[in-house]
């Protein structure tokens, strides 16, 4: 994993909370309340626009990487049709016990700057065998 990226913005994109995307998430959840839950679940973040870009930017070796945790903060559910600005940045990077940790912060704000959603994902890359 690349070092020295702490504090940098990896990418910033605009996304629309469209009905089809929410339906895709709801279908994956496959429950009676899935449509409601889909308005909380982000479909963006370290995977936009495709995990390959994220992996390339951080130089992650997928065979040694794992997700250690995610912390979601919700100001409110997403609304169908709204546009959100999505900013993905490296909040922290550190090494511990021979492993590298990176904390990726994803923030979704409305076009007027309203904070809607954020989440922090902690990825670990284990040391090479």
């Amino acid at each position, binding site marked *: 994993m690349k070092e020295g990226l702490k504090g940098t913005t990896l990418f910033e994109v605009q996304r629309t909370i469209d009905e089809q995307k929410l339906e895709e998430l709801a279908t994956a959840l496959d429950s009676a309340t899935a449509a409601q839950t889909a308005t*909380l679940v982000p479909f963006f*973040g370290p*995977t936009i626009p495709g995990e390959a870009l994220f992996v390339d930017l951080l130089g992650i070796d997928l065979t040694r990487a794992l997700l250690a945790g995610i912390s979601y903060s919700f100001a409110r559910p997403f609304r169908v049709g709204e546009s959100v600005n999505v900013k993905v940045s490296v909040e922290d990077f550190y090494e511990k016990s021979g492993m590298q940790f990176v904390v990726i912060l994803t923030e979704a704000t409305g076009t007027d700057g309203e904070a809607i959603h954020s989440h922090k994902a902690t990825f670990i890359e284990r040391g090479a065998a």
Partner: protein
Amino acid sequence: MAIAETTLPALSRQQIARYAGAVRDFNPIHVDEEFAKASGMPSAIAHGPLTLARALDAVVAQIGAERIRGFDARLKAPYFPGQTLTVAPVEGGVELRDGSGTVLATVALTLAD
């Protein structure tokens, strides 16, 4: 906090594939059996966020989406297709367990008043 223990049906590979498509996360450890095995897993595994989304769904089913403000999860073990998911209340949040009783994650919940 009044979250009652809930057990969700077994996770299917179709759900993993659908989630991968929805979020465009095709990390091969989720969708490629051989890659997963080469990475030391017995099979492909669910995306961590999918595991958490299922747990979130169990909470939403009980209190609705509007009241949930924070969902802070530490992942402890991989979640495999074919396994149920039990969401059980613990101090400050919920614990996620698969059908064998393995703790998959602990989640601190923050709810609006």
